[in-house]
């Protein structure tokens, strides 16, 4: 049982939960993730780690409410408990001095990106960040990202804030102007795919953090398998970060759609009971 110690609403559909988890806070490194289960009948879902506090023994996760489980999670408050929380899972990001790096975050992908960008900055890299969202209300961690970035660019799909368009528009401009040593991109799969396509033309090492469907998160089920460089990898134990130029994004997006109908059924059922 894990207690929620703080809840913040970053946008009407974006919530931040700080959870009591001293063992995980002590161990987690940027790039790793957790698995939670809300209650006895709940599913196991992976969530990213947006921040951690070793002294307080807490971790913070930020998520977008998209389906039954995330909406349910978003309805919980300080003092509520989760049935299960396991982690830290997956391999940490390889943090070292690359030189000049661009960190690209889309939507709630900015949350895990923040810890990684911070670690890259601490390792002596020049960090240029691009963060984007559909609209300005959904833009998160701007202040935090600005603090740890040498340059910060903002994009919104609807132009309500920053550049009117996609993160890749800004990325294109940046990589044509200067030599970039590494690009780290975390966000919706379609965004990561677009980033990968663009940087491949310029031959820039690019890392993405994948978000397939998972169940156990410890290497047992293979639900999260992806094809990377022609080989099957399990995102939960071999990843979640991979060389973007080797990932079969089409296959990943197909697999992410496996349970669309069931997700709709579960969400409708939950909303019927809670509204």
């Amino acid at each position, binding site marked *: 049982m894990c207690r929620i110690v703080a809840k913040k609403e970053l946008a009407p559909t974006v919530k931040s939960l700080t959870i009591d988890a001293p063992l995980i806070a002590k161990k987690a490194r940027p790039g790793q993730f957790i698995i939670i289960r809300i209650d006895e009948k709940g599913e196991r879902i992976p969530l990213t780690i947006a921040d951690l506090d070793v002294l307080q023994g807490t971790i913070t996760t930020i998520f977008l409410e998209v389906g039954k489980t995330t909406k349910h999670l978003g309805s919980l408050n300080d003092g509520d408990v989760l049935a299960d929380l396991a982690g830290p899972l997956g391999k940490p990001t390889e943090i070292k001095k690359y030189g000049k790096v661009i960190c690209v975050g889309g939507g709630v992908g900015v949350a895990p990106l923040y810890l990684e960008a911070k670690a890259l900055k601490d390792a002596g890299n020049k960090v240029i960040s691009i963060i984007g969202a559909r609209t300005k209300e959904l833009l998160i961690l701007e202040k935090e990202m600005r603090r740890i970035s040498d340059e910060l660019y903002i994009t919104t799909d609807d132009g309500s804030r920053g550049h009117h368009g996609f993160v890749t528009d800004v990325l294109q401009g940046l990589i044509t102007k200067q030599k970039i040593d590494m690009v780290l991109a975390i966000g919706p799969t379609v965004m990561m795919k677009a980033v990968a396509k663009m940087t491949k033309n310029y031959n820039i090492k690019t890392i993405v953090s994948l978000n397939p469907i998972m169940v156990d998160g410890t290497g047992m*089920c*293979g639900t999260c398998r992806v094809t990377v460089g022609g080989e099957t990898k399990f995102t939960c134990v071999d990843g979640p970060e991979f060389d973007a130029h080797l990932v079969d994004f089409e296959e990943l997006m197909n697999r992410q759609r496996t349970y669309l109908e*069931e997700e709709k059924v579960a969400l409708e059922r939950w909303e019927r009971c809670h509204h």
Partner: protein
Amino acid sequence: MGKVSSLKKQPMPEQEPEKRIRNFDEVALGYGAGQVVSEAKRCLQCAKPGCVQGCPVGIDIPAFVKCIAEENFDGAIEVIKKKNNLPAICGRVCPYEDQCEKFCVLGKKGEPVGIGRLERFVADDERKKGMRVPEKANASSKKVAIVGSGPAGLTVAADLAKLGHDVIIYEALHKPGGVLVYGIPEFRLPKEIVGAEIEYVKQLGVVIQTDVVIGKTITIDELRGEFDAIFIGTGAGLPHFMNIPGENLCGIYSSNEFLIRTNLMRAYKFPEYDTPIKVGKKVAVVGAGNVAMDSARVALRLGAKDVFIVYRRSEKEMPARAEEIAHAKEEGIMFKVLTNPIRMVGDENGWVKKLECVRMKLGESDKTGRRRPIPIKGSKFALDADTVVVAIGQKPNPLIAKTTKGLRITEQGTIWADKNGKTSMEGIFAGGDITTGTATVIEAMGAGKRAAMAIHEYISQ
């Protein structure tokens, strides 16, 4: 006794196939009290009983069978529990035909005594009446950490707790039981029964911490600082895939995913439970072990119309228990033997729609003693399937091997250990599938018993 024993076992009452394929309730219903006594009376009470040697945990089988024949069920379970902490589980999933019953004298002319069924009856009888917790030795002040709460870990934990040691089990998943809860389906091993036997282990004083992934949340090195000994029983939970083109199409599951969703996450009760599972009309299960039979029978219960086992050898070489193959057949599972998938073909949305296969013939025996399957040239054909379950075996979990420096690992990825479970590191023991590759519940329990004794000796020095 005295009379000539019947040649046949008392038949096991079972749910009718037409009915049971529509529910997840237990298939075998268990003997009634009259039946169990009649069956026990078939035992000849041999002076040199072979059955005991066939039991990996060394239960005094003639003694408990005699108690049953005398209608002393409490006495019978007491005899069993001296050696076996999980009798209701073993009475259901042990491959008795290859163990105790294989050595029964009656088996020479007819059927052996139904030892497994007798064990099941007295375990269930005790559970219904309320389990008694045995006397424990005085507290030793020694602490032992057990990694993994499957059959091996539970056995080590129970035996060491009875000897007075402080025992904590760390389990990575949210429910204890390992393969007993995530792998074996409800209709073969009801989770309520697993829960009750785990409750018994807890009553012995064992503490179980779930959601702790050793190697990630806490490392073995950190545990070494806090405990007098460690037992690793993390099992063989990683799925093998065939590594053929198209295997990552939608609708293709590892048997682990298929069974974890169904058993651990209760996807058969979706949407009451959140975790979904998708099963189409035509389901192909690749492989022919117990896990393949379980997967096929689960698919049927989830509403599939046609379910077939696809196996590259012939029925004779199938690794599944004869009983499981028979149950699958009764339920209408079809068998496509000497058939090997070489490619999975998808539709325009990335969903599997057929398996491209080749026909096989059997050649010389290989090192497992089974005849090697050889592809027949020009025999390529396609099988329609909208769901595929790959059930071709599991491999050991590498998490601890990867995160523990100095632990000797074999070429197969298992943790090296001697017959008493001693690993290459002082104070660290291991047993079950993590040391042997995939085996059975009872073999893991046998390894657990030997390791418990070795650990007891080690920490009592």
